[in-house]
């Protein structure tokens, strides 16, 4: 039972039908630290949870590029994870026609105790490539990430930027027809960002579908065909990018404390 069940006959590329996901309060994005355990022991944390998203209905057509906008904690990451199937909805159903690549916190999959080469196999495997496929893609990955001399050194020696770029390169090597990204679509230094952007534009021209959580810096506005705005667990706007951005600005003005926290990445 693979996580992403595909439906080749589906008309849309991605289809959210009345989707809801309920996650216990305070558990999101936290991991299981000691404090967490203690709080649970004291009983402060109830099991009730809250609806991060509810009644979400949306579709993404093949070849479309959709920006997902919203304030902090508006459920953007959950929306993307649902799209990729790395989260199972409590209500409703998410259907997909082709394999979806989840570019979500990619760097977190790396194991610092592994060498660069081993980590390429690890992340490649996590993203659905077989070791055989990784082997074929390996030279190109190492070349693009500029890691050729260090391939058998431990990854813990590499800088954060290098790790980011490596994760990005591996993700691109999967050649997935649908890319779901939480920021991360463009990474690294200025030169690398340009390289990434070129690659992403090429993929878009070749028909890849994109669903990206971002704040859409001005120069990327042209990349997206549509914007979905999430707020209070639901979709509050779905349409032209300019309208979506205007809507987001209104939301920000209404609650200035809520920052999106994703300004530096596309």
């Amino acid at each position, binding site marked *: 039972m693979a*996580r992403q069940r595909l439906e080749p006959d589906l008309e849309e590329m991605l289809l959210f039908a009345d989707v809801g996901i309920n996650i216990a309060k305070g558990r999101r994005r936290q991991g299981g630290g000691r404090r967490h355990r203690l709080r649970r022991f004291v009983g402060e944390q109830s099991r009730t949870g809250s609806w991060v998203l509810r009644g979400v209905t949306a579709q993404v057509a093949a070849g479309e590029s959709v920006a997902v906008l919203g304030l902090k904690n508006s459920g953007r990451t959950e929306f993307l994870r649902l799209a*990729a199937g790395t989260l199972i909805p409590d209500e409703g159903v998410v259907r997909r026609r082709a394999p979806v690549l989840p*570019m979500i916190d990619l760097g977190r*999959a790396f194991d610092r105790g*592994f060498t660069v080469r081993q980590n390429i*196999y690890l992340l490649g495997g996590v993203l*659905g490539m*077989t*070791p055989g496929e990784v082997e074929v893609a390996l030279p190109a990955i190492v070349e693009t990430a500029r890691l050729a001399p260090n391939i058998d050194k431990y990854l813990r020696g590499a800088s954060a930027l290098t790790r980011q770029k490596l994760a990005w390169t591996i993700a691109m090597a999967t050649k997935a027809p649908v890319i779901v990204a939480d920021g991360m679509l463009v990474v690294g230094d200025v030169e690398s960002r340009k390289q990434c952007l070129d690659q992403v534009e090429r993929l878009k021209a070749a028909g890849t579908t994109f669903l990206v959580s971002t704040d859409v810096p001005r120069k990327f506005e042209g990349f997206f065909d549509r914007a979905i705005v999430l707020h209070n667990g639901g979709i509050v706007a779905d349409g032209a990018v300019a309208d979506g951005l205007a809507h987001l600005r209104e939301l920000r003005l209404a609650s200035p404390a809520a920052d999106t926290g994703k300004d530096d990445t596309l």
Partner: protein
Amino acid sequence: MALAYRNGVRIIWEHRQVLRMLVLRDLQKQYTKFRLGYLWTLLEPLGMALVLWFVFTQLLGGQKLGLQPYFLFIAVGILPWWWFSRGVAGAARTFRRNPAILRMSVLPTKIWVIRVVLVAMAEYLLSLPVILIAMLATGTLPGPLIALFPVAIIVQFFLMYGLAMLIAAGAAVIPDLARIVRIVLRATFYLSPVLYSIANIPAGAQVIAAVNPLVGILGLYRIGFWPTEIDSLPHYGISLGVTVAIFIAGSVLFHRLEGRILKEG
């Protein structure tokens, strides 16, 4: 039963390439961490067996515990026990170690459990030369029933797999379970016939003791060396039944909790 097979056994075959890679990497990581590398896999159980042998034959010599030669008896028992205890402890950490991997992994969630199970099993298989060493040291050769040894490995694999699904899913939802598991493990060591034979305990208690799946598994491992262990065969049947029940329960629970586990990512 069908679900347990479909989602439990077939998944391993379908993802064998990725699994082989994950397991080899984990083993390599472990063996390159220490200077003596692989040797520790032999030295550690060997040292443990020596200590136990010394305590129970030299210090507390009068007691008739287990079967003779006792050093071999301990060695044959301690290795599967280590597989058991390490496998169970590892299972509790499955989704605690790096829950973030659940955010971007398109592999079936169960792969991470199978990885832990297979690494523990590989370590066990690599430690088997300890039994050869014990055979040499005691000058003992096994009889034809040693053919049941591989059967015991297969049964223990399914036990470990079922337990790992139960514990990994449980610990992902209730973190405290990892602590409870540690305490239960310690008790299980004394409740399992590692230091003694099932024949050593009162006849009336044997049926109850056999609910512990390790009774049957350790019996099967030992039959080849001590044919009298076959006297307890009916008890092994009980153990086997419990193993099957644990495997099915693990499959069902994991399937039910998968959505909850993913939310931990």
